[in-house]
């Protein structure tokens, strides 16, 4: 239930208080409706191509400003984002993953403005109160169903996460689901061979849909259960985020589909 005395969709930005350094933002001031229309072209800046993505804004520790933008003398190639949390919500997964992979750059993509602001504040607060940690996570406000190729180069990502996506129950809205045969082409493009796609939901029909799409898609194959059990990331899927905690509280069941990006078998 959304609380109406908090900040509602359109205006009310004045109620947001920038928290004191190190103090975590309070969700109360960043409430937004759970649903946002992915088809409407909201006005947020979109990079023309992956070369235009300014990583120094997101991960300042990895891209110190005094080195200058071009850096022809750089010995090592610049680090790239490797994990993407599509629809990251309030950032729970990123915060959980950060210490597990301290040198891997990760980004959350979220459509809702307020929620993105919340995650930004949260990350800044965590960095301030835990020096040297959480420098590898960040968030960007964008529509990942339309603009994923704008952010990532071919075969750049090693992990992609789709946690509790919008189920779009009505059949006529199925085409708006974030996992579909069409969009899996794009996700496969930005993932390297061997990369892993993690999906989880508490809606059984959606779980079947996502599993079925991944099974049908020629560029993904299922990962055997033993491997899934051994993956430290999998536990986070059902414990780290707001949504998963809500499901656990209500004693709900979750359905995951975890697949590996493979190269096309020539027939």
């Amino acid at each position, binding site marked *: 239930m959304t609380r109406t005395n908090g900040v509602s969709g359109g205006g009310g930005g004045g109620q947001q208080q920038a928290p004191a350094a190190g103090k975590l933002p309070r969700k109360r001031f960043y409430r937004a409706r759970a649903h946002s229309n992915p088809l409407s072209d909201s006005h947020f800046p979109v990079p023309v*191509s*992956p070369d235009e993505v300014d990583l120094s804004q997101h991960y300042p520790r990895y891209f110190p400003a005094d080195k200058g933008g071009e850096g022809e003398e750089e010995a090592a190639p610049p680090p790239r984002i490797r994990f993407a949390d599509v629809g990251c919500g309030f950032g729970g997964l990123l915060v959980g993953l950060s210490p597990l992979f301290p040198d891997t750059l990760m980004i959350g993509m979220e459509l809702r403005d307020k929620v993105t602001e919340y995650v930004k504040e949260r990350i800044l607060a965590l960095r301030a109160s835990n020096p040297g940690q959480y420098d590898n996570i960040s968030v960007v406000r964008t529509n990942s169903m*339309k603009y994923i190729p704008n952010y990532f180069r071919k075969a750049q990502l090693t992990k992609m996460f789709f946690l509790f996506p919008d189920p779009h129950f009505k059949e006529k809205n199925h085409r708006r689901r974030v996992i579909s*045969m069409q969009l899996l*082409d*794009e996700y496969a493009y930005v993932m390297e061979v061997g990369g892993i796609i993690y999906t989880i939901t508490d809606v059984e029909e959606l779980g079947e849909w996502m599993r079925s799409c991944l099974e049908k898609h*020629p*560029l993904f194959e299922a990962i055997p259960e033993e491997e899934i059990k051994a993956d430290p990331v999998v536990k986070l899927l059902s414990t780290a985020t707001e949504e998963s905690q809500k499901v656990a509280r209500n004693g709900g069941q979750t359905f995951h589909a975890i697949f590996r990006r493979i190269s096309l078998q020539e027939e």
Partner: protein
Amino acid sequence: MEDTAIEEAEVSGAAEFAPALIASHPHGNSVAVAIGPELRVFDLKSGSPVSLSDDCGGRSHADAIRAICFGVSGALFASAGDDKLVKVWKTDSWRCIRTITSEKRVSAVAISNDDLYVTFADKFGVVWLVTLGEDGAEQVSVDNKPVSILGHYCSIITSMKFSPDGRFIATADRDFKIRVTLFPKNPVKGAHEIQSFCLGHTDFVSCIAFTSMSENQSFLISGGGDSTVRLWDYINGCLLDTCQVRDKMGELLEQNETDDSSLAVADICPSNDGKLVAVAIQSFNGVMLLACDLVGKKLSFLKVITMEKSYIPTSLASSFSSEFLWTVMGASNMPNQASNQLLTRLRIIPRFQKDLISSDNGPLILEDSEVPHGEKLLLALQGSLDIAKQEEVLASVLSALKVSMHKMLVKKHYSEERREQRKRGRNDKKIKN
């Protein structure tokens, strides 16, 4: 109130304006012009207009044709548009051998290089594929329905082309993207492997074309609403060069004529020697020629060919075998346009090859009397020879042309209430699996 006027236009179903299109048979056998629902074809070998026969399930197109193309071998021709039909024609007999029904209006169409498949894009951004018979015979088999092979999520595909070696299919959309996908041996299962995205345009991409100098290597050229023509290494998704058409136009036109939105690239056409690119610009009465250096991987401005003040080409075409650049001007679906006023105007540029055009001899545009098969061709494809009548019709088209492309391809932003009102009128069909 302006708002209600727009409302009425939309509610009454008056779609946006539909530009006249032209296509040339790869071996120069014929020329086809599409204006509104009419398809007009002229046989250049016999020097006479072609009468199309369409006895496979329906009349010719019932609504504006939005896309036409010849297959690379010249055996087949396809037309598609707002009537949600895709028609495939054999070019020897000009009989329609296949009529395919689409659920939504069609925005682009292409024929695979081996003439086995026809692909078309609908307004949801989904590309569908239909298998044709081996010898192009009529196939009315029930199991040959269109299958979706790829999609640009919620975007409108403006142009779709197969690479010369047939390995790739390139699709460009209104959301600034160009996608190059592997076209598999068995495409019925879908084209899932994306080769690259060619990203760089900062506005809608209106047209793409492959160009090559030799058998082995080909490149992609694109034109867009950002008033640029770009050269791409499509295998790697690399932008090789950009030509700022706007800058050139700024030098050539008066100050007050250069309005940002009216300098969109409407169409591009590479020459068959791979050394020239002809560019049609939304409000320019002529054609801009760019020199295309595929070795140095550069595009540079060469010259403009200015035509009479009221002639703005809406579509360009060339063929492998002849040195003509065909241009056409016309539009349908205009407000207040009578259905018997589907007139177009053709102008032809004769020496569309780098060496020929650089030398200074001869006129740059053919006079009507010099056009192959002269009056017969012009009458058949234009619809009339009466200059005065034409001028009148084209003048009315002219002003609309200057704003329409922008309106057509840039997403409209509605106020909250208009959006709600539009939602009420929407009719989403159930998607059958």
